């Protein structure tokens, strides 16, 4: 998207939206094919584990499961267009209600994780750049390497045990705010701290050594503010583009983190839906998640183009 959208931002906005819609259609189709293929007995899911075979037959007839795939596909597209995502049999309420309730939790988690990684990663990167070549710089480098290599769900388990149970500083799972948010956001954002710090370190070093800064310094302007402003401007572009790339991964990681901490976001919802073979809920989660990423990507791209003068 980087190479293409640079070109397209000069083109009319219509082309951009058209591309998004086409992508969306791909997403819908792929989701449909996939969930259509999942082997499940929806009648059993509706009737519950203790229903007899005759009871199941009755329900199966009432669910119209015998219609051909093409017909179901058209019906599926039509309802997606009006945002009717169906009815979840595992939670016994409309899918859109469930997702509307859960999406903010995932969004909150993602935003907190991103803020955490920007702030901590940025600070570490800056400091490493200022102390370039020193011990701190090396420590940050090695630290980044190690942190990225740690499995997220493992980090979550360890944090939960140490800070949740042993020290009792944070609740053991659940969604109480703000205490319940800390550990999951930390876990999710930890890997991001690594690459953010490296990008900031690289751009900060570049900035520090650049002619502009030297020139400004020469005019007696306070170095800290210059560096900060310049670094932010330089780093914003790459950070935003990697963030866009990372967003899909972040939300994917959210599934694991939410599962470990019992955070009631969309990741956990989708995972449970998969466990229960609740097809409408699975499809709805995938679609809404994709739309979310698509929209945020577009926004980030716009922001990046605006912030980074080099790509204009």
């Amino acid at each position, binding site marked *: 998207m980087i190479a293409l959208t640079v070109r397209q931002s000069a083109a009319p906005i219509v082309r951009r939206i058209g591309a998004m819609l086409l992508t969306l259609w791909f997403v819908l189709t792929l989701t449909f094919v996939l969930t259509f293929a999942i*082997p*499940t*007995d929806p009648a*059993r*899911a509706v*009737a*519950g*584990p*203790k*229903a*007899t*075979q005759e*009871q*199941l037959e*009755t*329900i199966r007839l009432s669910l119209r499961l015998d219609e051909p795939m093409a017909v179901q596909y058209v019906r599926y597209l039509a309802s997606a267009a009006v945002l009717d995502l169906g009815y979840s049999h*595992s*939670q*016994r*309420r409309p899918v859109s209600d469930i997702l509307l*309730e*859960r999406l903010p*939790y995932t969004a909150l988690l993602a935003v907190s994780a991103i803020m955490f990684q920007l702030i901590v990663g940025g600070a570490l990167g800056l400091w490493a750049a200022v102390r370039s070549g020193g011990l701190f710089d090396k420590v940050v480098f090695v630290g980044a390497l190690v942190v990225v290599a740690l499995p997220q769900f493992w980090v979550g388990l360890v944090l*939960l045990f140490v800070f*949740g*149970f042993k020290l*009792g500083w944070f*609740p*053991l*799972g*659940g*969604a*109480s705010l703000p205490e319940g948010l800390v550990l999951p956001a930390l876990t999710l954002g930890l890997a991001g701290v690594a690459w953010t710090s490296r990008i900031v370190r690289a751009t900060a070093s570049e900035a520090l050594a650049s002619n502009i800064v030297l020139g400004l310094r020469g005019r007696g302007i306070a170095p800290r503010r210059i560096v900060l402003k310049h670094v932010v401007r330089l780093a914003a572009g790459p950070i935003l583009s990697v963030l866009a790339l990372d967003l899909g991964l972040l939300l994917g990681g959210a599934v694991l983190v939410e599962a470990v901490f*019992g955070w*009631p976001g969309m990741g956990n919802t989708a995972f*449970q839906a*998969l*466990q*229960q*073979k609740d097809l409408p809920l699975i499809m709805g989660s995938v679609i809404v998640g994709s739309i979310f990423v698509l929209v945020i990507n577009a926004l980030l791209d716009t922001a990046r183009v605006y912030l980074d003068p080099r790509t204009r």
Partner: protein
Amino acid sequence: MIPGDHDKLPCALTLVAEVPMTRRQLMVGASALGLVGVSMVPGKGLAQSAIDPATIPGPAWAGGTMGGRAINVWGDTSVDFDPLLAYGRADYYNLSNFFRGLTFLSVGAEPQLDLAETLDISADGLVYTFTLRDGIMFHHGRKAVAEDFRWSIERAVSPEKASWVQGFMTSVAGYDAFLTGEAPGLVGLAAPDDRTFVITLAKPDARLLSILGIPPFYVLPRDEVERLGDEFLTHPVGTGPYRFLSYDSANSQMIAARYEDYIYRDYLPYLDEIELRWNVTADIQYLQVIREDADLSMGVPSSVVPDILADPALAERFTAQNSLDVNWWPLNVTRAPFNDIRVRQAVNLAFDRARSAIFGMNPTGHLFPPSLLGFSDTAPVYLHDPDRARALLAEAGVSDLELRIGIFGATSGQNVRIAQLIAQDLEAVGIRSVLEQRQESAYDVGSMLSEEYDMWNMGWGMGLPDPSELAASLFGTGGAANFGGYSNPAIDAKALEAIGMTDRAARAQAYSEIEAELLTEAPFLFLGVAQLNSLRSSRLQNFTYDSALWTYWDRYWVVDA
């Protein structure tokens, strides 16, 4: 119901199903259960009711303090509080907080009169006349009358609802016509006046009082059920000791408050509020209880039990109970190799089920739980004998066998571990196995199980503490949990006959014969019954557990130090 070894109850219980009871006999029965020393605790500014505490059913309570709140955590991912649709644990085992019925299952799954004040059984055992207590109120402020009971019970077994308890009232007069739709209602249920409710049977049924004591047969307010529709699932309205206060789907919690007009309000419940929390995985539940963030977990993983027992403070708040959660591994008898009885028996002989004891199983090798009628110590369970297993396999002419084994509900971990134990023991007698974890429950796959696997795991939490439920669901032809394809018409006939037997001893004999036959035929790999580990906080007092209804929250109280 025969009390098991671990139930220390007086023999007065055995009177229950044998002889038609008069009011006096029932009253005597209840107080013989040891409802001693009930302190007369006045309710909070409510009108004094004329209830004799000795007639309040359920386990004993004494000396508790009113007030406080407690938190109960569960691993379920969703809850449904309609008594007919509650299939999980967090919902099903909390129904008795919101709803009550004609009878109530006390310790030992003993049915006692609850909302019915007296019971008269006709001499031929076919007509049960209940006189309801005075002043039974629904949470929304209406008085409960006999017609409500009639409607609720009819709803429970109606063909439209197609619920799992539908088959429990086959003995009631007019059931067949009701089931096929010929009759609009169940004629065997009648409410001649507001306080009289009559059940007329077509043939004797020893289980009726037990059946009425399980939550699906508790009384519901028709007006509220119809008004709330789907919302009723998360907004229960009944006659129970607690009434619904709030439901938070995002945080997976429900709060219930003491019901001020509860029928036994002068005495119970103790707590002002109880909070139910689900979506708390088992590996977190016991940690929350240890930290006193929660008061009760009934899902302590067996892997941490040694550590809990090693800490004396924790050990005294820990209990391991036998549940009515039957666990067995159905064998696919519809095709090779398990269509050969020798292979089936070989598998049972090869597996050393005692090894599964560390994984939360009480490996009795029976199908029936130890506390169930029909459980017999002399049943021909399989002993670990790999040599004989190999001999049988050779006799059956099978070699180079590879089995596909499905592990359902794999998130629990215990099933996965037990499956690996089975695989190891099968390997030792020359049978290879390929395991496959499936996150869903076997019931979701249903009839497709016999197409995909040779063997898989099943658990069945008995709702009705009576062997007829197992007969109907597990090994009866076409049973709700019988996916392995086992069918034995002789057993079906015997089980049907046993429902009508009123002589307790004869009934026990019939069922133990059935189990012996099943053991010999070996359509399953017999395992046992799941161990239930519970841990409570130091605040929670008077914790009592029973296998049918699990908890009795109306008579627990808390002390805050």
